[in-house]
């Protein structure tokens, strides 16, 4: 009660705070990181340099950054669409894995075939795989009103079992010395690298591949869908005011299905991009958790395509930084998780000030003071 400030609802959400909150959260995260490095007895300045600057100071580092940000961004775009429609697809990780599995199936079946359509077919399979995995919670939600949060999350833990079965059984590489791995995919089952002379020499020799163009294309498309299409409008009405959507006659079932299928498709495509990109085969454990990271990305990016692009770059940097301090300072990889958590935590905290502001407890105190002398005068 004695805290001199109190929270007070703003008349309208602050536009400035909406933009400032992510920046403020990033600063607080940096400060928190500095504190953590100091507490564990490391040179904070060197650690921060290794974490945030070093990965960006080489072409290779930049290429790795884009390679990581691209799938996170792609998944995030789909999730933003779903979350705007109040459909809580938490299982993008599972949809991504199944997308990767489906694409791997195509790559293994057509192994040795050199044609452009192998990659196209893999993309199609990846999308389809993600959609099928997302269709399960969509069906259960629209038919039996189950929670899509729980169903999609639980399916995320089913997907790795499917992969383990495949890579230790039917799809195991015969020459793989019994390791749970599939064969290495042929060049026509991989996204082309930027290695030819006709590419910008800038990127030559890095691992970055053509899948980033897919993400680049998806950004304006999703933005257009959100802002300009009637289907996108119907979905956001369903998310913002479900009663209004029913009042207007927008089908809730359709919203659930489109939200789940689109987010599942993009997650599946991202998974395909991993097996047909940096990994190049199906492994028993190949996901660095992009599907979960994307959830943080979506919220840090305020459900907006541009915000998601920026925050997925930031999140990719946290991954790279975690790896960098692991090698240069022998700090655990878990640090990138700590930073992710810190960032989300600070953001949620800063978000409070979009709708609220601090006000000094002053006015009431003044009123009490004016009452007191009156009281004594009535007594005398």
């Amino acid at each position, binding site marked *: 009660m004695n805290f001199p400030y109190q929270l007070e*609802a703003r008349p309208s959400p602050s536009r400035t705070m909406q933009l400032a909150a992510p920046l403020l959260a990033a600063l607080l995260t940096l400060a928190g990181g500095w504190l953590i490095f100091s507490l564990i007895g490391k040179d904070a300045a060197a650690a921060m340099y290794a974490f945030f600057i070093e990965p960006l100071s080489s072409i290779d580092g930049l290429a790795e950054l884009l390679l990581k940000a691209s799938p996170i961004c792609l998944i995030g775009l789909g999730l933003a669409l779903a979350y705007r429609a109040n459909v809580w697809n938490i299982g993008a990780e599972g949809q991504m894995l199944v997308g990767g599995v489906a694409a791997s199936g195509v790559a293994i079946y057509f192994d040795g075939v050199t044609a452009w359509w192998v990659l196209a077919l893999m993309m199609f399979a990846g999308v389809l795989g993600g959609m099928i995995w997302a269709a399960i919670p969509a069906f259960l939600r629209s038919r039996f009103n189950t929670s899509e949060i729980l169903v999609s999350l639980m399916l995320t833990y089913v997907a790795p079992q499917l992969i383990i079965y495949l890579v230790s059984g039917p799809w195991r590489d015969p020459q793989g010395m019994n390791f749970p791995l599939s064969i290495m995919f042929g060049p026509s089952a991989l996204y082309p690298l930027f290695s030819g002379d006709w590419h910008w020499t800038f990127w030559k020799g890095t691992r970055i591949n053509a899948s980033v163009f897919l993400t680049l294309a998806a950004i304006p498309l999703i933005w257009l869908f959100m802002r300009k299409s*009637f289907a996108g409008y119907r979905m956001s009405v369903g998310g913002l005011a479900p009663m*209004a959507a029913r*009042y*207007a006659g927008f089908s809730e079932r359709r919203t659930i299905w489109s939200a789940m299928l689109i987010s599942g498709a993009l997650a599946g495509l991202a998974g395909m991009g991993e097996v047909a990109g940096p990994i190049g085969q199906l492994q028993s454990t190949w996901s660095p958790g992009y599907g979960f990271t994307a959830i943080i990305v979506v919220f840090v990016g305020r459900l907006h395509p541009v915000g998601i692009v920026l925050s997925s770059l930031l999140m990719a940097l946290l991954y790279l930084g975690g790896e960098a301090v692991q090698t240069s300072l022998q700090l655990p990889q878990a640090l990138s998780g700590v930073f992710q958590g810190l960032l989300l935590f600070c953001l949620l905290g800063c978000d409070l000030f979009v709708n609220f502001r601090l006000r000094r407890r002053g*006015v009431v105190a*003044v009123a009490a003071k004016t009452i007191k002398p009156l009281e004594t005068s009535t007594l005398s």
Partner: protein
Amino acid sequence: MNHQVIASPPDLAGAPSVPARLSLSGVTKQYPLVRANDNISMEVAPGEIHAVLGENGAGKSTLMKIIYGAVRPDAGEIRWNGQLLEIANPAAARKLGIGMVFQHFSLFETLTVGENIALALDDEFDLKALSARIIKVSAEYGLDIDPQRHVHSLTVGERQRVEIVRCLLQDPRLLIMDEPTSVLTPQAVRKLFTVLRRLASEGCSILYISHKLDEIQELCDTATVMRGGRVTGKVTPAQETQASLAQLMVGHALPAYVHREHTPGDILMAVKDLSVASDDPFGTSLSGVSFELRAGEVLGIAGVSGNGQAELLAALSGELPLPASAPGETITICGRPVGRLDAGQRRTQGFAFVPEERLGRGAVPAMSLADNGLLTAHREQMVQSGWIKSAVVRAFAETCIKAFDVRCGGPDALAQSLSGGNLQKFIVGREILQEPKVLVVAQPTWGVDIGAAGFIRQQLLDLAARGTAILVISEELQELFDICDRIAVVAGGRLSPVKVTRDTNSEEIGLWMAGLFPGNEVVSHAAEH
């Protein structure tokens, strides 16, 4: 202007023999957006029934919450029996002897009457002894309620009695009644007035908050009129005319409605033997509802809330289409069966609907007015092969804002930033601009200030004159008598016969609202379960 402003007693300093039960001076409360109370002063004598009259948003409720200790004023002083004090919280208020009956009851439906009352008592209690006291007090005031009954089985009027008895048990010296009659039938209002007069005669002061002028004239000794957070007059209601009271309350004279000659046209909407079982355990099932709605007429459905209005509206609007087992012909629009169509498909047939809840149902709070226009008016060439035509959407919103006098910051203003009356004008305007064949309106002027209410009613009358069939479901009887050609009543999920407005009166409709209408003699509306 023939109202007489009574000056406050000049001998305040000279210490009158009996100090006022409650006296406020200079009470001010500032909220971030508005100054809800600005320098309010008033006095309530012991045993006085004192009206606080004002429109929605005039600051009545804030003032009452200050007196009840639920809100702290920024400035000003409160005297209780001449003693200057601060009311820290509702418990302190109750200790002083201040009781409050809220407009929206604060009862737990799954508990019994006795348990509900016990919960509100600040001291320890013995449920058995308490039950005996409840029976004694309620019998004494003619408020018969059974402490063993569960609250969900009570009618609205009975629930209000529970709230009143709850206050009476604490032996109040001041009872605050916040809009107590908004949910009662005219007969129940009579009963309530008897109880209040009896209480006053025993020395309990009553603060009676209302915007209904006739009630205040009938019941109250004095009235404090508020507008925009200030006191605009202190009057003796019996010496005033309704026009002069309205003048004080609204700041201008009440609007008159232009009625046109009534020429009933073709049947545009027909409902035949509509029965809907409610999913909600506390909802009301509809049984055998039938009516016909003709072009150019306004049909009103009166009734105490919770008697099947929500279920009827959901069935008519298509928000809850009839199950596959029911024949689609149960509801027809322009002769076509629509019973199993959803809300969007019914709209394509020329149906439009203004729901009771504005924010969240009639409009998306966080969306702009332009986007809210798109919500139902997208059939007006706003969408081309799946893409929204922003220019058309904006133009529609601009037309609507202009034609219906919506006070707002333009088409980009968020729906939640508008006052209730202005948002309602926008929603009504959006539906009317689509020139529907059938328009269903629920509570058209609930919570809307008098000026906007008059405007909205006139717009509905004008639309009917252009040949639209209009159904109005309202709890405000006066409103229905003002604008409807024919009136029916819904009680306990059944619809009464439809009467031509000039052949009936509020007494008869009041009886019907209690379930006593021809064809419904055996069914008491209290025994729905």
